[in-house]
């Protein structure tokens, strides 16, 4: 088995326009959430959402590269180019069959809606143009990224609800660890178009609309009211340690283990049992002790049922004790398909900068979860052995264990 490392990260995030700005937002617990007038007008139950500042894909991508990209692919493309730069890789460095793309995405509703609406409005499909077919496809990010990179190995999309991004890293890890690929660009993208979130809003899963957006997401807190949806993209360069060493790359983190499981019980309500099994298995596969995990970046989105199930799962997995835990979704909102990837990136940024972000808006635990060590205010510490978990509808679970090197 090859050792697998992360050497580059790129983010299109509501927390900042580059990695430094995102790190600052995490450090200062500065959320990237707003109240959307458009969603208010459209009758959303909760119009709160993450919002990107000054996103211009033309900064990173040519017209021809953007041409077949819908919203998720544009975010993914911009994040990918930044990840390559961060990894010290040229734009064409991953050209060839040893390199691949596995990207998390689970909707392209905005593009689907816009093209259907145009067809209805014009009474013809003639005006849809060349991008209509590709931008409506769920696999739009991975197919565009493969062309962008010239990679000739893996090229597919990981669709697993809100665990898509995490599973994409896990599958990239598996392909690299087993020597089937030398490096894989992985990550996750999430559209911000309202059409992608209307159904989720209808479930009543979103936070109390009367709240200030900055105070709205309260992961694990007894007074939590729901999640705030968000979006963008996170891209990571995952490669074998040998490959990284050969090219003299800086190692941001080693992926020690990836574990997956599913609940097999309910489409939207997590059992918690599957999550606990997944977390335990990831730590076992990493070959480290439960008490060695210094931080858990939790999935907790701020929902009543989800956070409670995860809290119980963490306590169960860690034998009744709790490592320090926080959910960066209090700041970023729930980045859904990208969340599992962005939260690995956020975790690495925090470890490298020497702090663990506050679980903003935490006012106290609910009954039965008092033992959970929720980071209410930022802790300035250099965590090295960390775990990030992600869970998705259908009861799909993912856990990744990372080691951030001392010199990082």
């Amino acid at each position, binding site marked *: 088995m090859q050792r697998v490392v992360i050497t580059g990260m790129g983010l299109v995030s509501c927390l900042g326009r580059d990695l430094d700005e995102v790190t600052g937002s995490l450090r200062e617990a500065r959320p990237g959430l707003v109240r959307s007038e458009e969603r208010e007008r459209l009758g959303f139950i909760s119009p709160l959402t993450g919002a990107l500042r000054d996103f211009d894909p033309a900064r990173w991508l*040519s*017209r*021809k590269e953007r*041409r*077949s990209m819908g919203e998720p692919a544009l975010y993914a493309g911009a994040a990918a180019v930044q990840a390559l730069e961060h990894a010290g890789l040229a734009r064409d460095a991953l050209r060839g069959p040893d390199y691949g793309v596995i990207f998390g995405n689970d909707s392209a509703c905005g593009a689907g809606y816009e093209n*259907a*609406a*145009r067809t*209805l*409005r*014009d*009474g*013809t499909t*003639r*005006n*849809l*143009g*060349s*991008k209509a077919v590709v931008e409506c496809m769920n696999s739009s990010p991975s197919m565009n990224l493969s062309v962008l990179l010239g990679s000739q190995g893996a090229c597919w999309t990981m669709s697993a609800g809100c665990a898509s991004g995490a599973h994409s890293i896990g599958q990239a890890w598996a392909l690299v660890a087993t020597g089937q690929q030398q490096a894989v660009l992985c990550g996750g993208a999430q559209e911000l178009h309202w059409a992608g979130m209307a159904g989720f809003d209808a479930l009543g899963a979103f936070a109390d609309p009367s709240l200030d957006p900055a105070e709205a997401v309260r992961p694990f807190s007894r007074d939590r009211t729901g999640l705030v949806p968000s979006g963008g993209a996170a891209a990571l360069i995952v490669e074998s340690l040998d490959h990284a060493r050969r090219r003299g790359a800086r190692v941001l983190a080693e992926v020690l283990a990836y574990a997956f499981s599913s609940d097999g019980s309910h489409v939207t309500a997590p059992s918690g049992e599957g999550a606990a099994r997944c977390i335990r298995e990831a730590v076992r596969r990493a070959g480290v002790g439960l008490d060695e995990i210094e931080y858990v970046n939790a999935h907790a989105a701020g929902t009543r049922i989800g956070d409670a199930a995860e809290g119980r799962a963490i306590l169960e997995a860690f034998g009744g004790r709790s490592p320090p835990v926080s959910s960066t979704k209090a700041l970023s909102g729930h980045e859904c398909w990208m969340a599992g990837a962005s939260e690995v990136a956020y975790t690495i940024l925090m470890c490298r900068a020497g702090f663990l972000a506050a679980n903003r808006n935490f006012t106290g635990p609910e009954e039965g979860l008092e033992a959970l060590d929720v980071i209410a205010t930022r802790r300035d510490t250099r965590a090295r052995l960390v775990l990030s978990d992600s869970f998705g509808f259908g009861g799909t679970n993912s856990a990744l264990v990372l080691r951030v090197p001392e010199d990082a």
Partner: protein
Amino acid sequence: MDASDVIRTIDRILVEDFELDAEQVVPEASLREDLDLDSLDAVDLVVALEKAFGIRIDAKVVEKMQTVGDIHAYVRGVFESGEFPAAAPEPAREAGK
């Protein structure tokens, strides 16, 4: 719309929609070799030309065009013939956006 208006409009579409330098857009420029336009761009070019001129264009004709001058000649020919193919239909109805 006279011939020079037609040419100006086509050149503007190529510069603005396809992000080309105005100096590149000359009648003898090859669509593929000089301007790097491909079959997907041809689809978008048809949409843009139909919208700009209110005419119906045969996509297969555009696919066979080699140069910017070929586009000029085709659209001018459509106008000079006086036999405009059916214009693109007006909006049928508002979709519930």
